[in-house]
């Protein structure tokens, strides 16, 4: 059961690192105490009023950030920190992760729906339209990664990369998977839920502690995704000299930084264009990825 504290330590470190990376990436100068800036921001939000809109769907309004955060934790629970060291070393690890992806879309939609306001609702709607195809192609990519391992368990997928990491073996896999990461953590080119053109989208009406909870949940999902991506494509805990959990943390951090950079430096196209790109270009690419994995798996 040493895995449980490891999960929460990784989550906390990931949230803090990505909040910090976000600040550095923005290129702003900060007066002092930059390292603690996320904490200060959190304290500020805690002291603010949590405004309620008129007649929201009260239950879902409260539940959606909680569900989002829970899904991040659940997704992280199948990631192994060392051989046989995961909170839930399931045989169906990546199916569980897929279920978490799908439910994340539900959580974001509910967040937009429950505010009873126009911009959040449009954000929720748009996110579903883009999120579902993105999730679909991520599943193909994950199945391709499961092929050489001959198992749906994340631990087995990591073990199958002892000779060669999946990022090399299946070059299409990681880039396509990163797209999904940008989508489910609501950032940059795939942020159709909380985008600036909707004044914050599903989060446009939240303030104070509620906004803090939503922000933490977003970063937690980003961390969970990065850990998953590091395990499936970058060999997870595998690596010389250092112990497994350290390697996983390092690779997770690297993916976090890549995602943060991509999120701030790629333009977001209008939703219909992105929709066409997802269905007509990227989904066939994920099939191609599956074919490549299949051909390689031939004895």
């Amino acid at each position, binding site marked *: 059961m040493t895995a449980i504290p490891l999960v929460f330590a990784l989550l906390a470190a990931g949230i803090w690192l990505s909040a910090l990376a976000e600040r550095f990436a923005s290129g702003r100068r900060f007066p002092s105490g930059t390292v603690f800036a996320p904490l200060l921001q959190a304290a500020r939000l805690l002291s603010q009023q949590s405004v309620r809109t008129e007649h929201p769907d009260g239950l879902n309004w409260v539940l959606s950030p909680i569900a989002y955060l829970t899904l991040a934790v659940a997704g992280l629970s199948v990631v192994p920190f060392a051989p046989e060291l995961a909170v839930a070393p399931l045989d169906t690890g990546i199916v569980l992760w897929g279920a978490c992806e799908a439910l994340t879309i539900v959580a974001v939609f509910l967040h937009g729906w429950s505010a009873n306001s126009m911009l959040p609702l449009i954000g929720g709607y748009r996110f579903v339209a883009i999120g579902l195809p993105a999730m679909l192609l991520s599943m193909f990519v994950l199945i391709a990664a499961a092929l050489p391992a001959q198992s749906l368990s994340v631990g087995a997928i990591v073990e199958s990369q002892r000779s060669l990491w999946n990022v090399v073996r299946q070059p299409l896999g990681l880039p396509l998977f990163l797209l999904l990461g940008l989508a489910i953590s609501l950032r940059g080119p795939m942020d159709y839920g909380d985008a600036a053109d909707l004044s914050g989208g599903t989060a446009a009406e939240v303030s104070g502690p509620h906004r803090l909870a939503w922000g933490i949940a977003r970063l937690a999902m980003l961390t969970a995704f990065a850990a998953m991506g590091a395990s499936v494509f970058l060999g997870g805990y595998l690596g010389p000299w250092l112990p497994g959990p350290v390697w996983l943390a390092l690779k997770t951090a690297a993916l976090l930084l890549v995602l943060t950079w991509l999120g701030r430096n790629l*333009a*977001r196209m209008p939703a219909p264009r992105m929709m066409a790109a997802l269905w007509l270009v990227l989904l066939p690419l994920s099939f191609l990825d599956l074919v490549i994995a299949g051909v390689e798996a031939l004895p």
Partner: protein
Amino acid sequence: MAARLARAPGISLQHSIRHAAILLVAGRYRDTDRSALCRLHDQLPQPRATAWWGAAPLTDVHDPVTIAEGDDPVPQLRRLDRDLLRGARASEPDWLPDEPPNAWRGKGDHGQGGKGMMGGVPYGRPMAMMGEEMRDGLMLDAMTVTIGPFLRTLPPGLSLELTLQGDVIQQARVATPAYSASGIASEPLLRAARILELLGLPDLARRARISAARGDDDEGLVAAARRRGALLALPADLADVRARLDAALRRGAAPDPGEECLVDRLAGMEWQSALLRVASFDPATLSRIAPAAEPEEGEEEKAA
């Protein structure tokens, strides 16, 4: 004016009033926009404060914080923020009575203000009614809403009355025209910054704003925008926006859109594309195609 804030350390401009702590009213505003300003203010979460930078405070505001037009607002804003957080300054009360747009309490079959399935004003607002979807002909709910005049993604002062089905605009009407702009407010780079923000490139937008505030050329800007896919992201039916963004990044004159009417062009467009198109016009063109500009100047932004 707000372009000058782009460089200020520790101050970030927010997209939603709910995310802000301080409302900064920069420049003059129209008398007709007063009620919109009050509504905006009342959506600020507490503790909250308003600063008037080169703007006349509303008469009934108690103890207003005013900043002269030529002054640097950053030190004052910082002090204000610190006082608010420490409780040294009381949070501002609502400026408008907190009441729904229509009375609903106790009315109707269940006290929710509605009648039957679709009638009445449940919880203060009428329900969306069916209308034909433009692209597909399905009868779907259409909602009429007004956005602006202080929406950050629109040019200051412009407010549009939109009939929306999902994120597609069925019908548009200019409710109030944009403020006419002169000096720095008509700087092309500010327009480019707004477009870049709509494209999800906040850092590049900030770079453009800083360059606009300095009033110098930033040669790398076009290349940087190109590298990040800003021009590529615009689809073929937004080719005019692409051309105007390219021109604005070079601080050049945009190609003349000719005799087009803005609101007609917006019908049938999806939300982000529509905002991109609105943001791409320079103030002079905008006042021509989205008519009846008034001789005032002003900008309003939110700072935290």
